[in-house]
């Protein structure tokens, strides 16, 4: 596996907010097809790290490259178009838009018809919109959401909103999918379904997945490798069983042993 070139290479990346180093000197390499977990206590900098990867923040040090291409200073929408898409810790759907329109927004950057062709309703407009419609419905079927396609996103139950958010992120046609606590607030049954879903889409779309999660059994169960962040620094990385027994990780989560 290590012989392949990494899909994503994060080289000693850090960011400083004023005097606070939120993330510093993080090195991560993701290889095509991997499912990787990113864990750490609250406030460890996991979401900040995602924001660095997606261009929401510009790193103050280090470089991030996708397939050898430096992503520095690219705006978030360009990074998405290059192939990194994400979900959010607190669901950020377009709540007033219908379920299918949420997915179609993600297709937007792939659309070919121009604003003028839409205003004048040229044939290419209808063709483009029809293509989007068909693709979006196909997509919703995979996620079992097609029966809700005309429902407003905000009217979906919580678990389905999570699913829709993942569907939307996938519709942007990523190579790397970042999931920020996808199982947060789900019951065990829903979590289980979610795990199956992630496995399914990974296979089907030939994806690399980076997953932030608090649910330890879940992370340990599905991830091939795990990175552990604490106070903005990587304190461990490796296979689930290595992580489980790593004294640094135990200390970060449970605190130092009283001597």
């Amino acid at each position, binding site marked *: 596996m290590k012989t392949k070139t990494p899909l994503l290479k994060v080289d000693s990346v850090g960011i400083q907010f004023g005097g606070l180093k939120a993330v510093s000197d993080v090195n991560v390499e993701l290889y095509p097809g991997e499912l990787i977990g990113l864990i750490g206590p609250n406030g460890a900098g996991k979401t900040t790290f995602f924001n660095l990867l997606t261009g929401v923040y510009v790193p103050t040090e280090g470089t991030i490259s996708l397939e050898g291409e430096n992503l520095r200073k690219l705006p978030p929408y360009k990074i998405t*178009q290059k192939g990194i898409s994400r979900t959010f810790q607190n669901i950020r759907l377009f709540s*007033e838009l219908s379920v299918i329109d949420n997915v*179609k927004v993600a297709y937007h950057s792939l659309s070919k018809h121009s604003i003028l062709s839409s205003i004048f309703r040229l044939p290419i407009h209808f063709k483009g919109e029809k293509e989007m419609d068909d693709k979006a419905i196909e997509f919703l079927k995979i996620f079992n959401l097609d029966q809700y396609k005309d429902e407003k996103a905000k009217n979906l139950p919580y678990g389905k909103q999570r699913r829709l958010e993942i569907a939307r992120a996938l519709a942007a046609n990523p190579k790397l999918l970042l999931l920020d606590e996808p199982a947060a607030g789900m019951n065990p049954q829903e979590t289980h379904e979610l795990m199956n879903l992630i496995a399914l889409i990974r296979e089907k779309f030939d994806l690399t997945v980076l997953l932030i999660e608090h649910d330890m059994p879940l992370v340990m169960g599905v991830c091939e490798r795990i990175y552990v962040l604490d106070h903005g620094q990587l304190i461990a990385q490796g296979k689930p069983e290595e992580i489980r027994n790593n004294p640094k990780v135990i200390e970060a989560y449970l605190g130092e042993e009283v001597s």
Partner: protein
Amino acid sequence: MTTFKRAKGFWLSISLSLIFFAVIQVLIGGGSLNPFYQNTLMFIGINIILAASLHLIIGVTGQFSIGHAGFLAVGAYASAIMTMKLEMPFVVALIVGGLVAALAGLIIGIPSLRLKGDYLAIATLGFGEIVRIILLNIDYVGGASGMQVSHLTTWPWVFAAVLVTIIVIRNFTSSTHGRACISIREDETAADSMGINTTYYKVVAFAIGAFFAGIAGGLYAHNFYIIQPSNFGFLKSFDILILVVLGGLGSLSGAVLAAILLTVVTTFLQDYPETRMIIYSLVLIVMMIYRPQGLMGTKEITSMFKRKGGSSHENKNTAA
């Protein structure tokens, strides 16, 4: 199949609005519609264009802009210069008015659309005032005493402009580009992370909105005989804003309805100059208490008819 149905509804609404146009035209020609009513009709038309154009900026894209009178002023003066100083035909003047306003929209939009919420509102408010004060100090356009403009705005012009405005804004909104704009309104961060170039679409919406405000300006200028910078103060911006909010943020038919309703209310209240503003304000307060989401909420008139399998003619009909 669905596209065919939609197209049918579209042509039905076009033909219905053309019939409406013809009826009014005959009434005007026959002299049964007196100048007072004619003038009200023009105002309704101009206000519809203004409301629809601001709807695109605030209702669809979610950019809270309160300098719309600035674009109205730019369009009004640009078109007045075309007809009065350069002796161009009216249609050229209207288009030039729209284009100059759109240019102003680009110039103000590119730097200020980085701002969000309250900050954008203040910046656009400032823009409106800057336009007014610049016009006040240019002698070429008459400064404070204003500019003489001949009366060229007629019912066919107003009607055509309203129809074009509504069709363009509706077509834009109900396309992938419109969805991109709505996604910015709903959640800019998420839109960004879905690959939407948010700055681009904000500026585009702003420029299209400004273009139609400029067209409205051309019609407005040539409806009056005189235009003065004081016609385009920030109170005018708020008048337009009220139309959009009252109609329901995000609803084109709501904005159109509100424009009709409020123009009629204002016109009839002119008979009671002492209590006019009190009644007007009361209408707004009562409205906001009992229907804070506006007349239509985010719905369109067309969606009310969909369940019965009807078409979208109402929308265009009221628009005419």
